[in-house]
């Protein structure tokens, strides 16, 4: 029986979107679980930041074997930017990279991201959503810097949760600031 490409891609696409949705609903269900167990005096942001720190450390471990300095610093920064963008793309975001003025300056732009939508659905604040994402990416970067003895920085210049339409983050070496 010949392969019906449209049918196969539709089925795969559906399964992927379903899986991406489950990741976010599960996150917010666990968030709710943690808040209920922690009691009324717990600040949700503390829990959320801790979660993203743990997640960032774990994801960073998978970055370490994939990155290396042998291809030069510029390639290293670009590959790191690609990997950071990949964490969003895997979750259903549209993320683009743009080179900055210098070779070790990359702008990472989230043109679409599903996380704020889920935050709204589950009653979490936009501030919490943004700070969580920042914590996740910053933790990854800290681990990468520690491992490779680099001093790369990441700054959030625009954010969808702030109503900027896109999230724009600048990855750069400090001395080029």
């Amino acid at each position, binding site marked *: *029986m*010949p*392969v019906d490409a449209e049918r*196969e891609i539709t*089925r*795969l696409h559906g*399964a992927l979107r379903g899986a991406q949705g489950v990741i976010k609903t599960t996150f917010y269900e666990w968030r709710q679980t943690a808040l209920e167990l922690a009691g009324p005096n717990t600040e949700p942001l503390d829990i959320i930041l801790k979660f993203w720190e743990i997640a960032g450390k774990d994801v*960073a*471990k998978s970055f*370490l*074997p994939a990155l*290396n*300095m*042998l291809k030069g610093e510029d390639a290293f920064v670009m590959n790191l930017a690609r990997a950071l963008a990949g964490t969003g793309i895997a979750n259903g975001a549209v993320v683009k990279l743009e080179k900055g003025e210098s070779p070790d300056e990359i702008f990472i732009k989230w043109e679409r991201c599903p996380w704020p939508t889920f935050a709204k659905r589950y009653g979490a604040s936009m501030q919490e959503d943004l700070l969580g994402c920042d914590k996740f990416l910053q933790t990854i970067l800290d*681990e990468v810097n*520690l*491992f*490779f*003895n680099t001093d790369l920085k990441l700054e959030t210049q625009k954010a969808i949760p702030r109503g900027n339409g896109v999230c724009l983050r600048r990855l750069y070496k400090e001395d080029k600031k």
Partner: protein
Amino acid sequence: MGKEFNWDYTSYPGYKKHPHLFKPIQLGKLTIPNRIKYAATEDNLNDKDGFVTDADVAYIRQRAKGVVGGICTMQGVYMDEKRQGQGYVGQAAAWDDKYIPGLKRLADVIHEEGAVACCQLMHCGRVGAIETEYCQGPSVVPQRLRIFRPVQEMSKEDIKQCTKEHVEATRRLIEAGFDIVEISAIVGYLISNFLSSYTNRRTDEYGGDVRGRARIMVEIIKEVKKVCGDVPLGIRLCAEELLDDVRGNTPEESMITYELAEEAGVDYISVTAGWQESILPVISRDIPQGSWLYLAKRAKEHVRVPVSMAYRLFKPELPNKAIGDGDLDIWEMCRPMIADPLMPKKVLEGREEDVRPCVACNLCLARLFRDAPMTCYINPVCAHEWDPKYQIQPAEMKKNVMIAGAGPAGLECAYVAAQRGHEVHVYDKKEELGGAIIEASRAPYGDDELYGVIEFHKAQCEKAGVKFHLGTEVTADLIEEEMPDTVVLATGPNYIKGEAPSFDRANVVSVLDVLDGTAEVGDKVLIWGNRKPGIGVGLFLAKQGKKVTIVGSERGLGKDINPSFRWRYSAYLRENKITVYNDCEIEEITDDGVTTVTYDGFRFPIKADTVVCTERRANESLQDAIREEGIELFVVGDALVPRNLSSAVHDGYRIGIRI
């Protein structure tokens, strides 16, 4: 000290063939009769509290016998009560006097075999602390691999304590009777962590430039040397870290550490390459033998003390020439003497054909990293030296044994059974020995070394009086005619096609026919099967410029390959642009490709003009006929369950000692 190790090798054939290996050498005030050293090797055979066991004593005795008067090193000992230096569950300890009796047992058995007893001090640093929450290091730098504990930065007090522990442990080793003490400073263990610019980010006197980073090493050498007296002190030091990707030391910096170690007082240096965290291969089969000798030569240009080295020096010709050329002083071995503990002894006696060859698979390492006792891929007795049930004993009743199949399982079984006194006949429908290893050894990246096992088997079978009947297939009629007491089926597996009816097409060929060159193969090839046979033939074809895709039903690639080698194949598959689809079935084969189905039902086409089948099943033929005759029956190797060369050899040995 007055210890003398007198050996006269001049009458042995190995002395005439490899004269440089059997010349004496001076380490400090100690004369070593030859240039052979069994290097420190963890074996995970000691108990969980660091006490030496009977298994380890028996293991070391065999290696001591093997070095024929040379140096036999026991595994590195950890030296701290907190066990942060411990890197292996079965690692011996030396942090208290209570360990001296056990250590003495090891020194004694080494001496009983006429060898020189060496013990290593080993704090495992960032790859240690397997029983505790944090490991120690100069700086908090995360490890690349997940299996290790988080690193805690050592304070200056910790460093002083560590130096003291080295000194105390040395005192115990000397009291136990060891003739040489060696410090481990390699592969990611503590001292190497301090030496490396990758892991040492300190700004105090123990960090900074290479001299600052080497301060702890220099202090330890000087302090240990004070208690050594006339006992020579050596160090294992990395000549190239192979950590350029994470800004590790340059080769020039590594040579400075050599010079500093010599200045501090070591009597010899053991040269090594790479770390456990290096992304480059160092000792696997894909690295040609002798590749690292240039490091020993470089070391000799920087230091005056003797230089030893292991690392892919499996054949005696290589170290013999290097020593003769002045590029090396001592031939070290780990894995070749795991595979055959008596290897140098056999070289000396002119019995090189009796050496069971290491195939550089790194199963031994894979086991250690998973808290399992040492095992050798190719040596079934390894780590069972203590167990009489594992040894070859004369048979109580002599039998006429028919072995069907002259692959590694059949041949291993054959010579063992023959050595026990049985009359053994080996049949094979092929005209040559080796079974599937003949084809498997044609795969690239060092797989030709696999055939060395068959050469070993051939020599053993001939010496044991095994009778070969090549070109003769075992049939029910032949069994009825010969009526042996025992039949061992070592026929190899059945190579099978997929369940889809289109597997009968003409463009579907067998892996064996591809590797022996009898099958016609197009430019776009789909390999059916994601185990080692599929990977091997895939690389074989990719090397001919063909576009290769591997599709297999196993969840992961190369499940039959040990993890310490699998990463090499993964790298070569990427390098040769081979696409792999795991957890898939083939639904249909057409003239120009196949339809593949994922485990959860997604279908997609892959273009291919040839499909190579590598999947195997157990071979159950002849079993009923043999049972009906009331003949004792054993099934070994891939005929029992398709696995790998190691399983074939181990099966063959275990049945060989049982018949």
